[in-house]
């Protein structure tokens, strides 16, 4: 890749001014020597990120429908939105994987005490009120 071909077109991520995240590419200059060039963004990569992000939203939307119809508990929706598997959730909270799967059912979720709820909410970075609603 030549220095003049380094993509600067599609800056998908608009980071905070303090952080200023930025990619860096290695490219050849006219003399055939490698140079480091900061790169703003490249559309194929951003398409991949966007696509994964949108499909994740769609999946969470499908789970939300099932929560509304009473098949799953709100925990299942929040886990789908955060892309958490039951194994990860078990690691963060200290519950077993089997118990996490159980809490995804409305009946068992309703029987949880406040301590267990705050543990689950802490792992998902949200408050208990947010955990029991599905907005």
């Amino acid at each position, binding site marked *: *890749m030549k220095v003049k071909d380094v993509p600067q077109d599609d800056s*998908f*991520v*608009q*980071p*905070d001014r*303090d*952080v*200023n*995240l*930025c*990619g*860096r*590419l*290695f*490219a*050849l200059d006219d003399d*055939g*020597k*490698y140079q*480091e060039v*900061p*790169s703003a963004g*490249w*559309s*194929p*990569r951003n*398409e*991949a*990120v*966007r*696509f*994964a*992000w949108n*499909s994740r939203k769609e999946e969470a939307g499908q789970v939300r429908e099932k929560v509304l119809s009473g098949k799953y508990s709100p925990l299942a929706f929040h886990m789908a939105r*955060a*892309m*958490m*598997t039951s*194994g*990860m*959730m*078990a*690691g*963060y909270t200290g519950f077993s994987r089997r118990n996490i799967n159980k809490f995804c059912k409305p009946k068992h979720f309703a029987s949880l005490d406040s301590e267990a709820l705050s543990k689950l909410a802490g792992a998902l*970075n949200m408050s208990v009120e947010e955990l029991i609603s599905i907005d």
Partner: protein
Amino acid sequence: MEINFEHGHGAHCESAVVRNLLNFYGIRLSEPMVLGLGAGIFFCHLPFFKVSGYAMTSFRYISGRIFSDVTKTLGIEYRKHSFKDPDDAMAKLDEVLLGGTPVGLRVGMYNLTYFPKEYRVHFNGHNLCVIGKDGDDYIISDPIGQNKNKLSAADLKKVRYAQGALPPNGSMYYITSTKNCKPLNAGMIEKSIIKTCYNMTHIPLPMFGAKGIAYLARRMRKWEKLFGKRGAALNLAQVIRMLEEIGTGGAGFRFMYAAFLQEASELLNRPGLNQFSMELTAVGDLWRDFSYNAARFFKQRDPEGLTYEDLAVKLEVISARELDIFKRLENSIKHG
């Protein structure tokens, strides 16, 4: 308290952290040189090992190997720790930090609050360097950012104990002494190139090294049958993200390794290595072409005149060329 640490922006998280750490101790190496000495370039595709639900595709060696390889090669003494108890891990970090030593950490990316939301995935191979403590906040030198960042102690504890595939378990590493440090010489570079060539050509399993790319091509042909149209596109998106996500220097480290070969050719005075560098650059361009075409699957669900078969053929060409390059590179180093 903040250590007088020169923060440098880098292309890849681990090699840039190692470069910045070595720089702190007065050993100046470029980032491609660190990647090359650490034998960082690799390929593997493991369908049975899932990272956030998709088959793991990696363009680098295991996280943490660059640091240990570079320091061992240069004769620098270092310590590595991991802890069961998060409080022990934070106490040890404070203790080392207050002694004036910058500490490298392996963390998960999901709870890194200074990252934009789109980049926060459950990926546990990110490296950063802690260089100071300000009240309850830690001062972080993350090479992906152009400036230093701050992270609260609670968040740092969370990212150090991220869950999922390959959990970091609070792992930390730091340099203890540089008194036996040897200057960079030709033998070190040659040894590391031979190690890289071994990883890329000789591992006797189909998923690893350059032939792993052909293995990925074979798997790719089955994706539509196995996962359906959407699932196949999601798997492809995962491969492109691993290839081009910020932190590879372009084309999955191929350009960075080519830059290393160019630097080595000047240091060793071997023009042949520069030839290999140009060939690897051409392969990197093929990777870019692959991702450019693959992106059409994300824009339209059914791109006209493009199938997974076409992408698989592109990968097979790349596989054959990389295999050829690394075989000849090994021969040229071993037999002059």
